[in-house]
């Protein structure tokens, strides 16, 4: 009985948990159907990376920028490698061209 209650509480907590990532940007994926738009491959983005096409930074959710990748996709911006740690192992903070602006920014990408 006690274990059943604990399991129920755990399930409730799991259901209420928040996440820094979403189907729009950041979720793990193997194929695009797991994402709102597209799945960047695990070969370059460890674990796979859900993202959406963008033209400007405004098209991306908070914390992401529009990088010059595949015609413009949203990637998380960063300042250090540690700030990409929430994405898992194999991610680094690297300089990347930003889409449309002709400037560079720091984004999380596969090492």
């Amino acid at each position, binding site marked *: 009985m006690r274990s059943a209650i604990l399991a129920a509480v755990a*399930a409730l907590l799991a259901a209420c948990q928040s996440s820094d990532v979403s189907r729009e940007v950041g979720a793990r994926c193997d194929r695009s159907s*797991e994402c709102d738009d597209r799945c960047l491959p695990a070969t370059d983005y460890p674990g796979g990376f859900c993202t959406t096409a963008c033209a400007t930074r405004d098209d991306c959710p908070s914390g992401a920028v529009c990088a010059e990748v595949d015609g413009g996709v949203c990637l998380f911006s960063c300042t250090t490698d540690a700030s990409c740690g929430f994405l898992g192992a194999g991610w680094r903070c690297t300089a990347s061209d930003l889409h449309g602006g002709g400037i560079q920014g720091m984004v999380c990408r596969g090492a």
Partner: protein
Amino acid sequence: MSRRLIARLVLALAGLGAAGAARAQPADPLPAEAHPTPAAPDLTAPAPDPSIPVTGPAAPAHTLGDQLISAEAGAVAGGRVTPGGLRIAGHYLYQLSEVDWFDGMAAFTFGSGQGACFRDRRDMVICKHGATDGTGVEIAARVRRLLTQRSVFQPFAQGGVGLGLARFSDDELSGFTIPLHAGGGVRVEVAPMIALVMEDELEFGFGVFGRGLGLAPQLAFAVTVGLEFQLR
């Protein structure tokens, strides 16, 4: 079962006897010897005292058959991994006692198939479906308690437990659900054997889902309207 039938027969006979007695004794507080002879009406009898309230015959009890069926339609608000959307339900009701009815329900929920599950970076599945996503089918056993019987409007409370299947097609996510039901409503007699039924209900419980999601809570609110037909 036979014992129960006998008990019901006894109750029915008792009811008939009481009704017969009531018919045989119209409301009249006067003793038999106080009745004036019909052949010689007493024209000098005093006028009725207006200060004494005059009560008419008792309102007839609204008799229901002991079996009802109903069809209802409405909406369910779900969310996360609880299906929501259009609700179509069929009911079979069987009278258990003076105020309690067994209510067997089969319900179908039709929502959108839009995907809303994803894997976070720790590879845990998270689903954030909207209130009208998913499809579901459920059978439930409930008990309805009429809060009043002798009225055209009959409010009731109800509760029960169900067993269901939930499906979110774009996420390829399916699961078994066990929701508890608690709610109420009102039935309104619109014809001798037909009643309009409106009910709202909170459905809460747990489901077991695939894709590594495992045990997940279920929570929904349903509002339905339908017609109830007396079988006999």
